[in-house]
């Protein structure tokens, strides 16, 4: 059973990457969109370009993992292709984990491109690689699970895009990408603390300035928690939808 699930998860993720993710429009969207936002802020405040890198990485992860993830399940359900996966000897959690895998691998790939450019530009001397790797992986998992939850919660592709943007855009401005959370009014700080992007930005910031695992532990735990809760919710909603 476990072997069936692991195999199914792997090949579903691989199929999604080939069929949906690694297409030119998707790649350009995943990379250009975060760059465009950061560039706009950099032009306004060119003195702190380095300080924008954690936010740039977090945004790339958010959009890279969730943009396609948010529509792929609802799309496959509409055309009947999801039924093909449900008929396979693969459990529902493994099926959904395969979907997450596709989103995560794509998000990690585009983030790697952005990371390499950032490290060339600003240097890698102060980077804590372990914390960086954990922060990127857990952020990708949390954002991919967010995309999957959006995708199973709606019935139409356009609804998925609307809901995903409804969640992502406020998160982008409240998650500490452009303005540190601590400098926000208290009410907004409270909201920021329930957003996974906030923890992604803080964990990435800690990693890039050489902070230790202890410095980022709470952020990493929060990201793992978001990933687990959103994944469990997505499995539950999908189970209700397909019956």
């Amino acid at each position: 059973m476990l072997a069936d699930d692991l195999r199914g998860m792997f090949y579903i993720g691989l199929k999604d990457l080939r069929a949906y993710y690694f297409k030119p429009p998707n790649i350009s969207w995943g990379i250009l969109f975060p760059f465009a936002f950061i560039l706009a802020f950099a032009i306004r405040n060119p003195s702190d370009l380095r300080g924008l890198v954690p936010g740039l990485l977090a945004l790339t992860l958010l959009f890279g993992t969730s943009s396609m993830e948010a529509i792929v399940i609802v799309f496959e359900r509409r055309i009947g292709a999801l039924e093909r996966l449900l008929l396979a000897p693969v459990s529902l959690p493994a099926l959904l984990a395969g979907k997450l895998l596709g989103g995560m691998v794509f998000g990690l790939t585009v983030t790697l491109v952005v990371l390499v450019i950032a490290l060339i530009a600003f240097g890698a001397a102060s980077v804590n690689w372990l914390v960086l790797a954990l922060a990127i992986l857990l952020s990708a998992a949390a954002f991919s699970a967010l995309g999957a939850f959006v995708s199973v919660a709606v019935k139409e592709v356009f609804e998925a895009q609307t809901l995903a943007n409804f969640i992502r855009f406020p998160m982008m401005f409240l998650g500490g990408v452009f303005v540190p959370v601590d400098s926000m009014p208290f009410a907004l700080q409270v909201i920021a603390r329930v957003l996974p992007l906030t923890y992604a930005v803080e964990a990435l910031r800690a990693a890039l300035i050489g902070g230790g695992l202890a410095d980022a532990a709470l952020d990493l735990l929060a990201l793992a928690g978001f990933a687990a809760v959103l994944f469990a919710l997505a499995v539950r909603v999908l189970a209700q939808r397909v019956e």
Partner: protein
Amino acid sequence: MTYAIQVTGLTKVYQTDKSGPPLRAVDAVSFNVSEGEVFGFLGPNGAGKTTTIRMLTGLARPTAGNASVMGLDLAKDVTRIKKRIGVVPEVSNLYDELSAFDNLVFAMQLYGVPRAERKVRAEELLARFRLSDKRDAPFAKLSRGMKRALTVAAALAHRPPLLFLDEPTTGLDVMSARNLRQMIAGLRKEGVTVFLTTHYLEEAERLCDRIAIIVKGRIVALDTVDGLKADAQSKTVVEVTLADVDNHVETRRVEGESVEAAARTALAPAEGRRVLAINTLRPTLEDVFVKLTGLSAEVMLAEKGGKGQSNAGG
């Protein structure tokens, strides 16, 4: 006798509307399907055919009753059952972006077909379904008939001993439907058990060893084609074709206790008209179906969007 499917009291109740009464989509159906048999499941729209398939393939949980598929308990062993069945849904649902070859390989990957066998098996299926020249074409670019054939091929990719076919030829042109029927007939020779739902009565008559007719969630008849016809043959049917002086032709079909009685009734309005033909008819599966469901084959096809046109030629 070994059964591929054994069903007892299988029931599915949906609560479609919170304030309304629950809908009994499938109502305590019981039947067995022998290994190697082509078993037809006939019925009008909404009769419960697809719901029955969805329960037997693990896509929907039965409300009551039990079933075993390939000797495995549906309630306990659904994952193992899934490994032993192939399913062709009503809509061809492969991946538009993947080629014909890659779609088959993906189907095999999901079912754990060893890597060394996948390529050979995919090429073999493409050849068998006359799709070798479309090997690298994306699924989206195939004709409707080719898509259907490839969907059947994908369902057979892991060599399941039991195949569920839900309306396999609906919407196909005559030649594509004929090719697909030949493939289904070929599966029987290989010993594959086939569970087939169809709106085409001629198709069911030609392909199936036994047929169950389901109406409003209940099986109202289950027998061989000849057995079903024998049940409907309690009366003789006579068909007469008459022409009036203006050569307007009318065909009348009349049932009677005997040939003489039926012929007398059929010929009653013949005064002043020429009798062009008079035939006694054996009942068709359509007669049986009409008798049991009250629906004509034309109505059933029209429900399905077939506008009364059958593709069952050939």
